[in-house]
């Protein structure tokens, strides 16, 4: 009994934290609420990190929940990323939400609800549970996007995201219905058993259902035929929310996508690969075009996040073509993208605390004279996002392209490398603006606080993930991270 309770403890702590925050939201100040939220999240994080690698695959409360809630290293690694992402979002933006008067206590509860939804999504072994979890996460994010409700851009972004998101959410449930019609169950193992046993069965129904589910997942990832919301929503959302969406929410979609394609539809992967190849090409080209044409840094990062989805889709389509490296490559890339994007958006919101204007490339002219520390950190994150050697982003892209070549998708790998070169343009433009232009303002003294320290730690991790070995115990370097990713994927495949 207590063992079972211990298994769901991290998830329970997060949702209890959300309830506590709701109750306290009127009596506590924002600072204290922030600390309470971070306390609950880090409690959950610590339990998960102690558990990683030590638990065998099991179900929580199998006699009550059935086989709906699975616990394996795969989901634990995702939980770690979600809680870490939320903690970083909250801690880096402490100054930001104090500078804006539209924040109130419910903000923290919504973030915790969203993390709870994502955690269930990573653990769910059943399609209806996954759908509800996805909706918990997205409904909280809808509200967070529109948090600045007296701002027209923010409200418009929320409406756009909510209407399109709800509509594509319906595709998920329709696909689930089709699969249920064919298999008679929505449990992933039953579906896998149905799909993987070759018999004289028509898999058309499962295939169409799977495609509909994929529509929802690709929409939330921002892959190109479904990308029209990305830039506007990322721009309309307040900076902390953009950071949360880009770094944390995006990862959650890959949790369900990987679980589906590795367990569920493993034998249908050949069909996926064809569809995914087309979408990958569109995503890489369309995303690059989106990113190049932007003047504002926030919009540029939004466009580039589409390109990063494209890189991950390269490896995703390689899964079906028999590349063992592909799934760990996606996990590694997720970690690397999480660190770099959270850092870049974190710096942006850190800067935006003091000014309310839209930040364009022009505003960054001579930034290194005004804020040498922050611009150095920003340069590191930009190098990592563009995939410069000796950063974690380079290794991420290296594994992705290796998996593509391993599975024989040479053209896709080539296109990926070309878009990586294109991305150098829009990332290095920012570095050039910061370092090669004289400053128009005088150098200002800026306070070095806890947020600045966190950003520095993340920049160190970005570099350590690119060059480091396991010289320093407890801090995984490059080879440690890929081992972690492989371990997680192995735990996923041991189920069958």
């Amino acid at each position, binding site marked *: 009994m207590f063992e079972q309770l211990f298994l769901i403890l991290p998830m329970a702590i997060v949702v209890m934290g959300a309830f506590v925050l709701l109750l306290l939201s009127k009596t506590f100040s924002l600072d204290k609420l922030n600390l309470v939220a971070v306390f609950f999240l880090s409690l959950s994080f610590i339990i998960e990190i102690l558990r990683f690698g030590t638990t065998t695959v099991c179900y929580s409360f199998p006699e009550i929940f059935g086989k709906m809630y699975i616990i394996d290293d795969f989901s634990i690694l995702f939980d770690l990323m979600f809680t870490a992402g939320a903690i970083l979002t909250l801690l880096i933006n402490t100054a930001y939400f104090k500078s804006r*008067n539209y924040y109130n206590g419910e903000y923290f509860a919504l973030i915790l609800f969203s993390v709870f939804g994502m955690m269930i999504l990573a653990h769910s072994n059943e399609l209806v549970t996954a759908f509800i979890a996805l909706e918990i996460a997205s*409904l909280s994010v809808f509200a967070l996007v529109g948090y600045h409700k007296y701002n027209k851009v923010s409200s418009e972004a929320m409406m756009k995201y909510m209407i399109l998101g709800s509509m594509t959410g319906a595709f998920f449930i329709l696909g689930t219905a089709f699969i249920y019609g064919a298999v008679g169950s929505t449990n992933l193992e039953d579906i896998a058993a149905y799909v993987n046993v070759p018999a004289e069965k028509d898999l058309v129904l499962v295939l169409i259902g799977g495609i509909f589910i994929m529509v929802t997942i690709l929409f939330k990832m921002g892959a190109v035929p479904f990308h029209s919301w990305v830039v506007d929503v990322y721009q309309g959302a307040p900076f902390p929310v953009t950071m949360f969406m880009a770094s944390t929410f995006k990862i959650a979609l890959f949790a369900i996508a990987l679980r589906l394609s590795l367990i569920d539809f493993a034998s249908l992967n050949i069909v996926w690969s064809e569809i995914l190849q087309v979408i990958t090409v569109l995503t890489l080209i369309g995303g690059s075009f989106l990113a190049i044409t932007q003047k504002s840094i926030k919009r540029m990062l939004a466009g580039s996040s589409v390109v990063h989805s494209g890189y991950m889709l390269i490896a995703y389509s390689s899964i079906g073509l028999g590349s063992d490296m592909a799934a760990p490559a996606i996990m590694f890339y997720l970690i690397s993208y999480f660190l770099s994007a959270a850092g870049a958006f974190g710096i942006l919101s850190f800067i935006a605390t003091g000014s309310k204007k839209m930040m364009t490339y022009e505003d960054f002219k001579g930034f290194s004279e005004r804020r040498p520390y922050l611009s150095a950190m920003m340069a590191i994150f930009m190098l990592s996002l563009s995939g410069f050697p000796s950063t974690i982003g380079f290794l991420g892209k290296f594994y992705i392209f290796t998996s593509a070549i391993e599975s024989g998708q040479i053209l896709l790998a080539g296109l990926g490398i070309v878009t990586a070169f294109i991305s150098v343009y829009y990332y290095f433009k920012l570095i050039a603006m910061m370092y090669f232009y004289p400053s128009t303002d005088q150098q200002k003294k800026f306070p070095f606080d806890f947020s600045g320290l966190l950003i520095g730690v993340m920049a160190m991790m970005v570099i350590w993930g690119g060059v480091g070995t396991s010289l320093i115990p407890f801090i995984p370097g490059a080879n440690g991270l890929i081992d972690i990713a492989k371990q997680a994927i192995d735990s996923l495949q041991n189920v069958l």
Partner: protein
Amino acid sequence: MLENSIFVLLALFLLLGSAGMVGFKQTLFSAISFMMAMLALAGMFALLDNSFLFLAQIMVSVGAVVVLSLLVIVSVNVKEENLPKEPAKFRWMLFAVVLVAPLAIVIYKALTYMPHTWAKTGEGYGSLKMMGMTLFKDWVLPFEIVSVLLLAAMVGAIVIARKEPSNDA
């Protein structure tokens, strides 16, 4: 034979209601067409001998959703001339129909692949008791996390809709 004719009638109402909801210019008519579609859907559930879903459909979709939207429409009371002008509305709708036609073909194709043999329904199928047993025995986890979903949605809606005079700046 009887259930087939009832089904055709209900399907006709469902289609008409859905078309009317999109087609009418007056929002009040749209809402009432939507109500018609929802009632027809409830009839479908009744035809399937699922009394619980039939009741839930009427109570939730008709009783709560449509009545609430009617209430909003009536209390806002938009005049005919203030409604947005959509001169090429039906041309756009035709365009949209052409656009989603492939999707409709895919869905139709999926439906034709549905298995034709169905498991026999047991005693008391569709009753409240069976529904409760299913929800609380086989589907406890989804059922419980739906409550969190509703709470999160409610908190979000309150945050967005609440008026804060101090923040008007």
